[in-house]
């Protein structure tokens, strides 16, 4: 079984978000970068599927050289080889196009990624990749079992979930609880150093959008504390001040 896992290189979920250069660039100062948490679930499930079925996991990132430590971590977790498309991931279509071009070079049974990146939260790349390759796409996928040429998957819908049976190959945007995150062990970390990480140049530079400027939300006011014995005060505030009930 040949699996392509697409990962993003994103600020840790606890990062303080700030911008520089007149609010046109993300401020990386002091920010720890990680594998996108949803992508990390996809990778963990890929490792489990490989344990069950054999095969190979290729991890793919569209990013600049500062992604390499994140890619090495994915190799330490269990991917066999990596490809980095050497470009700033400027736009969802641009990224989807690069993924589709790489996918065309290999015979992948599954193309997995997170349901969305945690920097832009668009959740659109899996659908675009599916369309560009003429493959079905599913998201958000919370369970995935493979049996021969077909798969059983569970997709979260608003207020519940649905179970589907589908044929391979397809594209899936993954989320918990598809698998538990895996922490690399020492052997994984050692072997990751020598696993291939191939850097390729982007196939096409088409982007459909560009960022004009960033901004931060207005600062939150000070919390008003209410005595636990005086819940009526809270009711009055919600009704008369906030006017939300």
């Amino acid at each position: 079984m040949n699996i392509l896992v697409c990962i993003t290189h994103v600020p840790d979920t606890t990062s303080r978000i700030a911008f520089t250069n007149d609010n046109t660039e993300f401020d990386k100062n002091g920010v720890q970068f990680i594998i996108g948490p949803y992508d990390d679930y996809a990778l963990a499930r890929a490792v489990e599927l490989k344990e069950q079925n054999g095969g190979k996991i290729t991890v793919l990132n569209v990013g600049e050289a500062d992604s390499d430590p994140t890619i090495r971590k994915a190799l330490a977790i269990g991917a066999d080889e990596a490809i980095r498309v050497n470009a700033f991931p400027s736009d969802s279509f641009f990224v989807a196009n690069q993924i589709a071009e790489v996918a065309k070079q290999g015979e992948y049974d599954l193309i997995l990624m997170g349901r969305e990146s945690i920097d832009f939260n668009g959740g659109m790349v899996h659908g675009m990749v599916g369309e560009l390759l003429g493959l079905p796409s599913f998201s958000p996928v919370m369970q995935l079992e493979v049996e021969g040429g077909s798969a059983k998957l569970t997709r979260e819908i608003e207020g519940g979930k649905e179970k589907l049976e589908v044929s391979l190959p397809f594209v899936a945007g993954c989320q918990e609880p598809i698998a538990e995150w895996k922490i690399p062990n020492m052997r994984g970390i050692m072997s990751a150093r020598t696993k291939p990480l191939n850097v390729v140049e982007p196939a096409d530079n088409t982007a459909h959008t560009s960022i004009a400027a960033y901004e931060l939300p207005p600062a939150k006011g000070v919390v008003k504390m209410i005595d636990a014995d005086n819940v009526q005060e809270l009711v009055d505030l919600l009704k008369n001040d906030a006017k939300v009930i």
Partner: protein
Amino acid sequence: MSVLVFIELEEGKIKKSSREAISYAAALGETTAVALGNADAAELASAGANGAAKVLHVADDRLNAGLIQPYAEAVAAAATSTGSDIVVTAKSSLADAVVGRVAAKLGAGLVSNVTALPDTSNGFVVKRSIYTGKAFANVSITTDKKILAIKKNAIEIKEDGGDAAVEAFSVELAGDLFGANITATEKAEGDILLPEADIVVSGGRGLKGPENWAVIEDLASTLGAATGCSKPVSDMDWRPHHEHVGQTGVKVSPTLYVAVGISGAIQHLAGVNSSKYIVVINKDEEAPFFKAADYGIVGDAFDVLPKLNEALKQALA
């Protein structure tokens, strides 16, 4: 400018978030909506109240369930047939999966999590939420065709229009688009959908166990609210995963978010920071959630919630 809106139906009703999308679209130009699968004509006509001039109805029974590929095909066909410059949809778990495909089909620039109308004074620039609500980006779309997925509860619903004209619309949908076979659907019946809710009441580990959820449910029922929970609560299976609010769960943007027994880890805050008002009830006065709250009560949930519920019932009676 002509605009097409993809309407999502929930048990035959137009979803609130789709009405927000129609209201948004109507502010941009002549709005046509498209609805897929079985639907009542009067319900579809009611999209006119929100600003749709016309509703195209693809009454194909195969579309009664939300299927990603055929939906994308039908939405793209409607956009092409109406000559729409812009496709607008609510951001949702289904629409996300569908409109990425539509964007690739049409070569349309796509922006998701849109929170405001575009600025067209110099090109086409829309404001969108990024970093799970911790910041915004103003994004310029450079393609002729554009797709906007609107963040829930960001746009006020207009209700001043008359009925829309409902027209049958037929789309050629090849059988191979229906390769995915839905074998089972599990859905909480009659509940208010968490991502759409105006008010959300969420519980955390402070409630000590799933058997204690009645205090959350009672308060939610009084307020007409959806119920949510923190990640540990969903991880321990106290509550179903679709109630998990936070960075890796559902992001909500209600007018009122009530958090009970949740400490307020930064990953949980990321899922609620676009709420208009936040009430935090926690027995630990050091809980970080208080810093993100508008109103706070330090106290035991099992003491405060029943009292608050009674007071609310009287105020709302």
